[in-house]
């Protein structure tokens, strides 16, 4: 254990500091992506003709390489955390919109009618009926978004050392310290698995009515 988590001072952070930075750089964009995706998805559910072009646009946006996205943004936002977070927010948005649309659309018409019959207005019906029933699909999208976001933050190292745990890769390579590289890769992977597990747990708590024990209700949820 001796010195395993000791970092050279030019990283300018302790190990827990880097983990916190990594989580912040990865998860704020996912949260921003979710906040933007909810209204966009609702719009696509309401106006059916809008979904096909939105899906096409998101596929194209997702095809833009992260490194290319980062470096083009340098001209506008400099070599800062924001430059790393904007593309990650866009990728999250792209993953979440189809997930939410599929989820909200999968709510049966009878359920909606029942909610209306019970006197729920459009807003309450959305928050109390549609979103909870769509939760499994939304969380499936969130899992993909979070894991890929955590993995991509490391690339931020290339633009002015904004890669949090990824910064250890550079230091490890220049100083010939494989320990730092192992530490970076393993920490990032563990972080991704931990966040993934937390989301699965959160889904269980959010949807107590779902069947347990490996039975998978939604077949086409994780199609991406």
């Amino acid at each position, binding site marked *: 254990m001796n010195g395993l988590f000791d970092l050279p001072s030019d990283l300018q952070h302790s190990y827990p500091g880097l983990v916190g930075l990594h989580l912040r750089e990865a998860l704020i964009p996912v949260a921003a992506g979710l906040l933007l995706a909810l209204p966009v998805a609702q719009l696509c559910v309401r106006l059916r003709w809008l979904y096909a072009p939105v899906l096409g646009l998101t596929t194209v946006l997702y095809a833009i390489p992260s490194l290319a996205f980062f470096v083009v943004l340098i*001209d506008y936002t400099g070599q800062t955390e924001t430059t790393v977070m904007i593309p990650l927010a866009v990728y999250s948005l792209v993953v979440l919109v189809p997930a939410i649309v599929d989820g909200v659309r999968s709510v049966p018409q009878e359920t909606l009618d029942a909610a209306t019959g019970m006197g729920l207005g459009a807003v309450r019906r959305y928050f109390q009926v549609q979103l909870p029933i769509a939760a499994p699909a939304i969380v499936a999208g969130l899992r993909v978004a979070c894991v890929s976001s955590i*993995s991509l933050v*490391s690339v931020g190292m290339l633009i002015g050392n904004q*890669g949090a745990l990824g910064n250890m890769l550079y230091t*490890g390579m220049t100083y010939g310290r494989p320990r730092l590289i192992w530490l970076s*890769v393993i920490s990032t992977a563990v972080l991704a698995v931990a966040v*993934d597990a937390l989301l699965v747990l959160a889904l269980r708590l959010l949807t107590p009515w779902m069947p347990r024990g490996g039975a998978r209700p939604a*077949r086409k949820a994780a*199609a991406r």
Partner: protein
Amino acid sequence: MNVLHFVGAFFGDGAHWHGYDGIPTRLLEHLRYSLVAFAIAAAVGLPAGLLTGHTGRGGNVLAFLATAARALPSFGLLVLMFVLFGFGLVPVMVPLVVLAVPPILVTAYEAVRSVDPSPVDAARGMGMSESRVLFQVELPVALPVVLGGLRSAAVQIVSTATIAAYVSLGGLGRYIIDGLYQHDYEKVVGGATLVAALALATLALFWAAGRLAVSPGVRRAR
């Protein structure tokens, strides 16, 4: 439009069009890394995904493997493999294949598994062997989704092959990495444009492949 100005300057410079650091050379290198990685990933992911989808077994193991592979950071894996194996193609192939196998595997499995069971039963009733059921009934119906998985794998490979330049290999990433170190923003943006264009071209290629390969009956049903 600052960025557009840099892009114009990059492509307008004749020096960028020939020699070992010219656009054709770098483009071919990039394509070579991408194709090799895609071939390996498809050779691993497709048979496994189709077979598990056909039998309907092993879905949990598959989901676990896919999550584990997704959790591994491509860039970190690249640097780690470079430190372990040294200069060469192996350190680049490992992260690219790890990145591309999960989408291929998971979509192939989901696609084949969710094929409408009645035509499959009909095929069995007609006396088709299991392999013919898979290749002549299940695969054609599942093809649009399977192609979708292959597409997102290919696009991610093309995007990510950029980082090969960080461990001293070629490819379009050379322009981005070199440009960043030389503070030559024109080069950086030129490289970024090329990678993005290649990724979009890959997208278009798969769209065209879908138009050609998917049976008209299946397309109409969607």
